[in-house]
């Protein structure tokens, strides 16, 4: 069978063997543990706390309400007492508003949570349930799912694409989910299909997960869901690249997947949607891979939102050797963590620990004009040209070179023989262009 793929990209060593055979384990929570639940764990406006210090909360209880359409509510990950509502160190390394809950060890559910049969609900009722459960994209970008499922009237959607690619090296959370909970994912897909009213649904999985491809193909047979095997190539799991690989359609420059009739959802999001609609469970847990050369025993964990990264690492046997760098998410697109004390969020798809020797320390060299970044770029832009214009402050020129088409996959930086942090300048260019457009 010929494997589908996109143009550009590269293939970094995937290092998935460390954790891909490890079944998902529940990261334990003891009485007295503090959970730091950040109020901005999604793209869009931060939620607003609706509990105060001293309140007791049940597991799954609403603790913060959304502000605006592109925002989601946040729920208590366990039962216990609210010990603080104050700024705490967040993912980005800055202090951000958070609700701190001290677990009472009971882990008692809020009784008012109830599921429903999706067959008896209208698409709008399902969408409301998805929003009220705080579901966001579980691939790591954390975009509110109900917004993605509400395309404008004039956009005709005819293709639902499920992202089971997991092209980031080291990460195996989606892989394990597909193997251990295929039914949960498939039922979630059927719910999304109903909301969007689409006939065609396809799950894209990279060929380095043959067991998941086999299992999902068997489980999906006769239920209106296809499975597409994809070549192992980074960034196969990026929305626009995945759409091209599976359907041959191209998202126009500056457009969204809905502009070519597609909606893309992560398999983890599908499972979370099923939990939310059928069982009434809000998004308070997720699966994360803890891996890398500086962790004693790499594992896949079911973690509670708000658990500090240090707890996750501790459960995996702690730090091995000298720790050089911690990355939240995958090594290509993830963010370096300033400390292990920061809490896990809805976007924590992985926690990777690398030893001191693996951290790049040499300064950048001069650009040798090799063109590797241009060949690797899956968005067909010129990373080196844009980066150097950005450094000179020539934002208008960067915009003309289509800097906004950058998907921040990091391929250019990975391949650069001169070790130039191109992606850093590209992100800066995008930020400056957005700020400029807002001003005009």
């Amino acid at each position: 069978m010929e494997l589908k793929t996109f143009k550009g990209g590269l293939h970094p060593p995937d290092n998935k063997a460390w954790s891909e055979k490890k079944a998902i384990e529940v990261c334990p929570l003891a009485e007295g543990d503090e959970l730091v639940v950040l109020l901005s764990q999604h793209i869009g406006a931060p939620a607003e706390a609706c509990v105060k210090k001293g309140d007791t909360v049940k597991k799954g209880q609403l603790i913060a309400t959304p502000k605006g359409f592109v925002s989601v509510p946040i729920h208590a990950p366990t039962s216990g007492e609210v010990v603080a509502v104050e700024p705490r160190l967040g993912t980005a390394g800055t202090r951000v508003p958070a609700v701190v809950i001290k677990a009472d060890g009971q882990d008692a559910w809020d009784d008012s949570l109830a599921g429903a049969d999706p067959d008896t609900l209208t698409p709008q009722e399902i969408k409301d349930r998805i929003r009220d459960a705080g579901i966001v994209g579980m691939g790591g970008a954390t975009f509110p799912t109900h917004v993605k499922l509400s395309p404008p009237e004039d956009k005709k959607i005819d293709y639902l694409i499920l992202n089971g690619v997991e092209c980031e090296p080291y990460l195996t959370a989606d892989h394990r989910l597909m193997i251990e909970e295929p039914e949960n994912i498939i039922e979630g897909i059927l719910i999304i299909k109903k909301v969007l009213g689409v006939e065609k649904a396809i799950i894209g999985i990279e060929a380095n997960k043959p067991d998941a491809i086999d299992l999902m193909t068997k489980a999906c047979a006769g239920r209106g869901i296809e499975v597409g095997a994809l070549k192992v190539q980074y960034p196969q799991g990026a929305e626009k690249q995945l759409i091209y690989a599976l359907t041959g359609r191209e998202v126009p420059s500056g457009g969204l997947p809905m502009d070519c009739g597609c909606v893309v959802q992560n398999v983890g999001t599908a499972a979370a949607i099923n939990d939310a609609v059928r069982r009434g469970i809000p998004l308070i847990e997720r699966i994360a891979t803890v891996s890398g050369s500086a962790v004693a025993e790499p594992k896949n964990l079911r973690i509670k939102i708000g658990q500090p990264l240090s707890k996750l690492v501790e459960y995996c046997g702690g730090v091995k050797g000298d720790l050089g760098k911690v990355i939240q998410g995958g090594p290509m697109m993830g963010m370096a963590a300033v400390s292990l004390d920061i809490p896990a969020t809805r976007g924590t798809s992985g926690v990777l620990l690398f030893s001191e020797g693996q951290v790049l320390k040499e300064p950048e060299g001069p650009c040798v004009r090799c063109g590797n970044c241009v060949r690797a770029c899956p968005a067909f832009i010129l990373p080196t040209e844009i980066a150097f214009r950005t450094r000179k402050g020539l934002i208008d020129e960067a915009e003309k070179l289509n800097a906004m088409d950058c998907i921040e996959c990091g391929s250019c930086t990975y391949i650069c023989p001169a070790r130039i942090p191109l992606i850093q300048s590209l992100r800066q260019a995008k930020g400056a262009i957005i700020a400029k457009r807002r001003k005009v």
Partner: protein
Amino acid sequence: MIGAVLSLGGIGFLAAVILGFASKKFAVEVDPKEEAILNALPGANCGACGYPGCSGYAKAVASGQVDPSLCTPGGKAVVEKIAQIMGVEAVVADPMVAVVCCQGDNEKAKDKYKYLGVQDCITAQMLAGGPKDCPGGCLGLGTCVAACPFGAIEITPQGLAVIDREKCTGCKKCVSVCPRKVIKMTPKSATVHVLCNSHDKGPMVKSYCKIGCIGCQLCKRTSPEVYEVENFLASVKYDTYDAEQAIAGMEKCPTKCIRDFAAGYPEGSTFKS
């Protein structure tokens, strides 16, 4: 031979007539004042006046509707010259100079992570709010140095930006590029300044910096005319500045975050007072 001389001479003569005619017919009228003003301006094209370059400002002043004292780099001498050209009285304000309100170099202030990326403050600031633990401190990567048209800023070997009070012309270019807003404009006549930009409470400041303002109010209690403390950060009241009182308050500062530039620049700087 004669033919060649005649024909070339003829072409030359014809061209001269055409050029002479064109120079009269298409002459661009330039206000002689504008030209004189442009010659008087320093020619740095820094934009401190708010106009596009020196020629833009010269034109605006020549039109008679713009204040002739807006060229801060030129200082008193230039303003007087322009005023003379325009035939108005020179009003020279006290010149302003920029000051980096931070002394937390790499030896005195803690970093929260090791930064190895693009050597530019604006880029670094986007990564977890910059490597320096202090939210307001100078990052020392030299974005202001590159922006300064007058070569008035240097980065000390310890990684702190310092501005030469003699070379600084007050064009504010550095103020606008600094992502941490740590550079402030101050009157040149005042030499005592509070060199801290952190509004955090005392214990917090102490956790990351040896030379930051802890908001203890000692300077204010000693010289209430000169110092005020707002939101845990002291500042100098330049309107009621008095050198003697300022120094009295400075001497009481337990963290030495107040500095008299007349007595010396921060450690590692090559600038002389």
